[in-house]
């Protein structure tokens, strides 16, 4: 059953609210909210310790960029630390999950054999493995990277498996009629056909990895965006915490934006073809 994105003709947005274009109203909303916040802070209604004034937040931005927090560790250092960890964990997960997913997806036996293990392992809260990782791999980078890898791994794996399983049999039949050997079938049909789903899994995996790393960085390190806000907590520096959260939010947006761009470049032919597994 096809659905359209506008609800009904009568309810259609005319694109204008209160006579102004929608975009303007949205921007105005944000400005108004910030303005109210500033005023409430000024009037002393909002506890400055809990809700620092927007003007202070802006000043803190500058401070984080130049002086850093803790002093000497600028926000760039934090970002770099986080990025490096994510990339390493993510790459590790992808390199293992994709071939494994392809193999499992194409083999009924492997699929059945690994299904219970995968289902269970997926449901283990990634963060709960943090103490274990610390015991086994110490408090250094390795345990953090492995945790991120574990977090990303399952999303990439399950989506790759589903993608490989669900290659349209029409493609396979068509290929068989065109003198395709088994190897050629795999590399020239199954792999490209699975690619959109692999990519979807990679997007989700990165999302999960991103969340994991923030939490992981709150334990045992002082470099990294997660560490930044955790430090802020210890010193009751709500302004640092909030600014840190904003940085994290922007960072997350950049990641998904980049991935979307990347997808459009690598897979120009696959627009909205896929159903995704969470």
């Amino acid at each position, binding site marked *: 059953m096809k659905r359209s994105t506008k609800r009904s003709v009568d309810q259609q947005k005319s694109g204008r609210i209160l006579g102004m274009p929608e975009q303007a109203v949205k921007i105005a909303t944000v400005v108004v909210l910030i303005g109210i916040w500033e005023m409430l802070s000024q009037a002393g209604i909002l506890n400055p310790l809990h809700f620092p004034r927007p003007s202070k937040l802006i000043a803190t931005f500058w401070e984080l960029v130049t002086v850093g927090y803790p002093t000497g560790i600028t926000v760039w250092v934090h970002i770099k630390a986080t990025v490096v960890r994510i990339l390493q964990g993510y790459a590790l997960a992808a390199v293992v999950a994709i071939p494994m997913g392809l193999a499992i997806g194409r083999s009924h036996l492997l699929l059945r054999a690994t299904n219970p293990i995968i289902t269970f392992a997926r449901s283990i809260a990634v963060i709960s493995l943090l103490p274990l990782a610390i015991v086994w791999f110490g408090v250094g980078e390795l345990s953090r990277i492995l945790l991120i890898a574990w977090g990303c791994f399952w999303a990439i794996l399950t989506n790759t498996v589903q993608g490989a399983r669900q290659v349209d049999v029409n493609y396979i*039949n068509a290929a068989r009629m065109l*003198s395709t050997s088994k190897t050629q079938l795999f590399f020239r049909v199954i792999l490209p056909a699975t690619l959109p789903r692999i990519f979807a899994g990679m997007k989700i995996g990165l999302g999960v990895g991103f969340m994991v790393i923030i939490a992981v960085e709150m334990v045992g390190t002082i470099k990294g965006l997660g560490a930044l806000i955790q430090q802020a907590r210890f010193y009751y520096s709500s302004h640092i915490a909030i600014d840190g959260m904003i940085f994290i939010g922007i960072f997350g947006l950049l990641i998904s934006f980049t991935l979307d761009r990347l997808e459009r470049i690598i897979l120009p032919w696959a627009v909205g073809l896929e159903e995704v597994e969470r």
Partner: protein
Amino acid sequence: MSKDGVEVLVDRITKCFGADGMALQDVSFRLFTNEFLSIVGRSGCGKSTLLNIIAGLLSPTEGKVLINGQPIHGPGQDRGMVFQHSGLFPWLTAVENIEFGPRNRGIPRDQRRARAMELIELVRLKGFENKYPRELSGGMQQRVAIARAMAMDPKILLMDEPFGALDQLTREDMQRELLRIWETKKKTILFVTHAILEAIFLSDRVIVFNSKPGYVKKEFVIDLPRPRQKSSPQFMRYYEEIYEAIG
């Protein structure tokens, strides 16, 4: 259209799908060189199953398919197939789709590109060769699918309701296109459809197929000169006879 030489002999094919029962029961018929043969019947899996067996994609439970006296073992270069939903590879452009088979065979780039472009011209898609399937209309996709199947130069073309997903007008265009290609390239075509008018318009012979289980009910030789008029009385008479035979 010469009728000399039996190209394909379908010999007592039976196919069972476990609990689903008998899909095909003792199906036998002949397909002659350069002939256009249609199989009509109600919508149901029997006809497609039969076509898949002849293609070599499925094995029969009993019986065999002989081509020029030799039994078939799986798909082969002598048979090409066009599916209802084109089955074009969405990650390849039109011309790359057509080159797919020759590329698998190791034919060098220039050669296969030249051949593919010939076929693009044959199916009248010049200018669209670098488009992806999703950029092409249904009719155009099927034309690419036909060209792709023909890139391997098969003697026999198997077509499984290839125009079923198209709208009526495009469908009629494609019917004429197919006839033109058939007459130009002199292929043997086995065409499956549930549209009786289509079958009569296109074919030398029409086999009426029963569904569940599938078997040959009746055979009709369409003795009309081409191009055929769907409105002519003889045409309508064939239609009535076949319609009644389907039952």
